[in-house]
């Protein structure tokens, strides 16, 4: 930071301190929101269970109690899936926007999530795999293939990249439908793993995917500094001693790991990874160390919040979290597409 003669060092220090306070405050508020959403996700639902009973189920479960079974067997796994998938999508979105310097990037919008879905469905159909521990690996394969296709056609232009991603999704979705029509087993499996819903995933999928999400999150945290330099442009980053190709490769790996895991957990969910990093940048500025941290908190807030809203808008029934998340994210997409940053494209 340049300090002109008028700005004393104490002024600068105060400025830095106030910004740091603001960032910490944003993270604390996000953490509060996350807690709130998790509690809402445990308490609210088709079956009415009082908060006291929820607490009882968590601390001192009674074996035969139906309410306790609902909480422990359905709502806790659902909340865990929402938190993990939301974190993966939020962080993946931030990394993808950072490495492409593209405000209209999101693992769902760019077709990665549908690629992962297609690979899973095909693995179930052609190889007869049924255990999540087996077919989860195909999610990464599919996400990587979709990413390669989308980036090879759309690289360079933000708006075009997003459009190519949407088209690849439009190409893959009928393929998934076809496989499902052909193969009853895949269909049955998929129904429980319905598009963009957090229900029906057992904890076994989570157990397989959790280490991978953790690895992806660690990778992303390690990339934060590199992404900050990359934001100044390839040449500047190179001048600062960064191997840009290496950054791209690591970012690609991170994105594929996170997007593949999120899809294996929750199905192809779009626009969470778009909206969350934008909200994070609004709150903490452009430093990717903070953007990534806040995205990791806001991603679960958005996805799990969408899940809770989906339970409330339909009395007696539910709307998938992915549908609600897309409805929340769509205005963000429109706003970003209108934005000045892409106006020159």
């Amino acid at each position, binding site marked *: 930071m340049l300090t002109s003669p008028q700005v004393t060092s104490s002024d600068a220090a105060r400025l830095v301190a106030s910004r740091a306070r603001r960032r910490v405050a944003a993270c604390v508020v996000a953490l509060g929101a996350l807690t709130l959403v998790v509690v809402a996700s445990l308490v609210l639902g088709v079956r009415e269970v009082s908060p006291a009973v929820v607490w009882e189920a968590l601390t001192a479960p009674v074996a035969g109690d139906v309410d306790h079974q609902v909480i422990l067997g359905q709502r806790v796994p659902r909340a865990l899936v929402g938190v993990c998938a939301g974190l993966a999508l939020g962080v993946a979105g931030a990394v993808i926007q950072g490495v492409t310097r593209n405000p*209209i990037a999101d693992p769902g919008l760019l077709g990665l999530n549908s690629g992962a879905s297609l690979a899973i469905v095909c693995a179930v159909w052609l190889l007869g795999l049924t255990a999540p521990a087996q077919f989860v690996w195909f999610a990464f394969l599919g996400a990587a293939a979709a990413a390669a296709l989308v980036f090879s*056609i*759309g690289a360079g*232009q933000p*708006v*075009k990249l*997003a*459009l*190519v991603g*949407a*088209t*690849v999704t*439009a*190409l893959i*979705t*009928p*393929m998934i*439908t*076809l496989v499902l*029509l*052909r193969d009853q087993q895949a269909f049955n499996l998929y129904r429980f793993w319905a598009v963009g819903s957090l229900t029906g995933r057992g904890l076994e999928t989570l157990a397989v995917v959790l280490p991978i999400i953790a690895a992806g999150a660690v990778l992303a945290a390690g990339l934060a500094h590199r992404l900050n330099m990359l934001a100044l442009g390839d040449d500047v980053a190179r001048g600062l001693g960064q191997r840009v190709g290496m950054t791209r490769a690591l970012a690609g790996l991170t994105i594929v790991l996170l997007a593949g895991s999120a899809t294996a957990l929750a199905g192809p969910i*779009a*626009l969470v990874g778009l909206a969350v990093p934008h909200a994070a940048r609004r709150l903490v500025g452009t430093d990717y160390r903070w953007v990534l941290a806040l995205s990791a908190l806001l991603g679960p807030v958005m996805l799990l919040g969408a899940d809770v809203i989906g339970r409330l*808008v*339909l009395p007696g*029934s*539910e*709307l*998938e979290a992915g*549908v*609600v998340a*897309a*409805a929340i*994210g*769509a*205005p963000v*997409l*429109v706003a970003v*597409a*209108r934005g000045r940053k*892409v*106006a020159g*494209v």
Partner: protein
Amino acid sequence: MSSPATVASLRTLRHRRLALVLGSLAALVVVLAALGLTLGAASLTPGRALLAVVGVGDAGDLFVVHRLRLPRVAAALLAGAAFGLAGALFQSTLRNPLASPDILGIASGASLGAVTVLLGLGLTGAAVSAGAFVGAATIAVLIWFFAWRQGLHSIRFVLVGVGFAYLASSLLAWMLASADQRDAATALVWTVGSVADVRGPALTVLGVGLVVLAAAVAALARWQGPLALGDDHARGLGVATDAARVTTLLVAVALVALATATVGPLAFVALVAPAIARRLVDDGGPALSVSVATGATLVLAADIVAQHGLLGVSAPTGIVTGLVGAPYLLWLLATHERRSRA
């Protein structure tokens, strides 16, 4: 060089080519329609199918042809024609090969409007088409409003449409879930699009509406040539460009609404059919009449493939049109820059 004789001979050549293209497409439609009438669980010979069409044959043949196969073929032809014409109007009026109602979210708006009228208000028939029109027009106005920024940048225009398509399909999912329509066929028609279950009254609405709107297009057609030259030239030729453009787009939106209200959003037909038509005619014009024919041919062929060509699975029509259209759109995007630079 361009003496009157040369111009006249060029014009004859163009007319001959147009007649040739339309004739070949008509022949293709006849062959495909015959296929559509003969193939199926109860297989008929082409002769028996044809006799059954004119009312000759045993009760079984008549039932299969009149109740099951003929409505399906007719729905494919009419909806395809409507989508093809609408796409040609959109693309020529906005002078953008990407401007197709399904990419712009207008088809999703039509679906949403139709479902709102059908499930929310409990009405059927022409009211559904009217609802689809209101939904499509609303989305079109919203996109126009949000995409405008010192002019209409074509790809951003499309991306704003993608955003609205997400929004509309979310609302659609909510409508379908809250009405507790667990019937898979209903949901498929509104999300993917299928010509399988179109019955008599809906077919009549589609047919009559298509004729009326096609007449309107014919009345507007004298503006299409000048508009394709650009606003300044068109104005110089005495065309009120804004009025012409808005009227044309309204008719195009109505066509999309009409077809979507009957068969759902058949992905990418409105994108691909005009592109094929322009390539076949190759005179730089909007190729409206040929787009009608390519649209009808495309949907009929797609439906036959969807029914019989996919390894024994009977799929909704929109799946096949999506599988054909999406690669074309990818190719269009991959070469977009090169062409706009050229």
